[in-house]
């Protein structure tokens, strides 16, 4: 009886996997073996792994995605920690999510207005007697804006796992004479690892294929894999090469998943 119940219960999810994941992935794999003349070939993979262009791009993407994720964690963890201690914490966390409901392009345009040469930030700088800064099209502004976009996605899972920690653990740790810092590093952070891991998965993986922000804010000074995919699918219509990059992204995602999932302990089993 139990088996039946479970089987029925998981049907929608499995159906989804089959229709919207397995089928498209099969399609992407299939396309990745064809050139622009629809001939079967391995040339796409050969080009990807031998041409300096794509390898540099991959290295760039990984580096920037790493930095974006790092910044997002550094800002988000304390944020989630403080919010989880507030009285109306559920309200505050909703207020973290709300900015994500505004269209990305509009927010990016707002950032252009804020950071540009005659923008609001520079006017503030001038007001305080500071020299005007060229902020757009720098790595720093690109990483900061990307981190800005990703922060809510990082705060949420961390907050989720923080609210889960029972106060008794923290009290126990205090009673045993741990300092605040020790409580944080020895009790709280280890217990929120699952949240941090899903935060990394939600932030790092999509950051590998950013293209909008790298153009809008970064001025295409950083070319990521996302830019190349966009170009292959929409400009040159070389779906084969685009799919090949897609396959590489999927494989690197699997690697990230394996890395972030290895140390799964059933602590309280």
């Amino acid at each position: 009886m139990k088996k039946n119940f479970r089987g029925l219960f998981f049907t929608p999810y499995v159906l989804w996997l089959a229709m919207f994941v397995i089928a498209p992935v099969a399609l992407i794999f299939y396309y990745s073996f064809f050139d622009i003349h629809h001939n079967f070939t391995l040339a796409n993979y050969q080009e990807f792994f031998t041409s300096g262009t794509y390898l540099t791009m991959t290295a760039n993407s990984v580096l920037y995605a790493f930095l974006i994720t790092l910044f997002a964690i550094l800002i988000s963890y304390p944020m989630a920690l403080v919010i989880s201690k507030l009285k109306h914490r559920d309200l505050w966390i909703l207020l973290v999510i709300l900015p994500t409901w505004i269209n990305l392009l509009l927010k990016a345009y707002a950032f252009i207005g804020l950071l540009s040469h005659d923008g609001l930030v520079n006017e503030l700088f001038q007001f305080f007697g500071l020299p005007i800064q060229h902020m757009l099209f720098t790595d720093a502004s690109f990483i900061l804006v990307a981190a800005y976009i990703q922060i809510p996605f990082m705060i949420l899972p961390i907050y989720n796992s923080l609210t889960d920690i029972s106060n008794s653990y923290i009290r126990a740790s205090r009673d045993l004479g741990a300092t605040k810092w020790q409580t944080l590093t020895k009790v709280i952070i280890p217990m929120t690892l699952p949240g941090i891991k899903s935060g990394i998965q939600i932030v790092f993986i999509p950051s590998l294929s950013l293209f909008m922000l790298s153009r809008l804010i970064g001025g295409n000074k950083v070319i990521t894999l996302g830019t190349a995919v966009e170009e292959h699918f929409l400009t040159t219509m070389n779906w084969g090469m685009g799919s090949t990059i897609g396959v590489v992204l999927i494989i690197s995602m699997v690697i990230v998943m394996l890395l972030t999932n290895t140390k799964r302990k059933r602590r309280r089993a």
Partner: protein
Amino acid sequence: MEDKASRTGKIYITIVFLLLYIPIVYLILYSFSKGTTMTNFQGFSLKHYGELFADKRMLAIFLNTILIALLSSVCSTIIGTMGALAVHNAKRRHERETLLSLNSILLVSPDVIIGASFLIFFTALKLPLGFWSVLLSHIAFEIPIVLLLVLPRLDEMSPSMTNAAMDLGASPSQILSKIVLPYIQPGIIAGFFMAITYSLDDFAVTFFVTGNGFTTLSVEIYSRARQGISLEINALAGIMFIFSLILVGVYYLIETHNTGNGAKKSIVEVTDR
């Protein structure tokens, strides 16, 4: 739950909140500008709101967008939660890893790839493009995020709780509705809100799978970029934002007033095992 945040903590989150909201305040501010673009504020005017309310096409697009966002988020939250249970109950480790990897493929694939492959898929099935194809696609790409937000809660749940309930003769459905769901509720709510985010933000997938006059706000905004995005869009974003702010406030008031304390206590007690 009393307020235990330290002073520095409060200052810190005030700063981060300010940073989070500055771009939004900025673009709402410009919706009141007399000018036509998001540069150089040119005096207060409500004309962009006038334009917006006269633009029936834009208003219809707006309602469609919200409709798709809510409907797809409800469906994906249900399916995603089921998926999280499936992954959580996976017996062998490699089974779990495979499911998780498959789950995240849609998160990692660039939107154009997903959009193009969904388009091929729908046309192969002879499904007409429009409302239903957009709804299905949104459900599809929202499921993974829901799962990733629900799963950590499930994994944190002590198996001894369900074991005890089972020993006491509770049926699987009772265990699910009385123990598991209340426990993972915060994850489910987070998943629902993130699903809405994904739906509202998506351009590329919607663009490819839409048709027959059905459009969402994102598609309209992106395709206006070549001509320059008019401040009418800012006005719409502003209204939407204020509206969701009010909605969140009302939701929260009801929540704390009615069930608030009772329900929260019970969760806390369960946790304090």
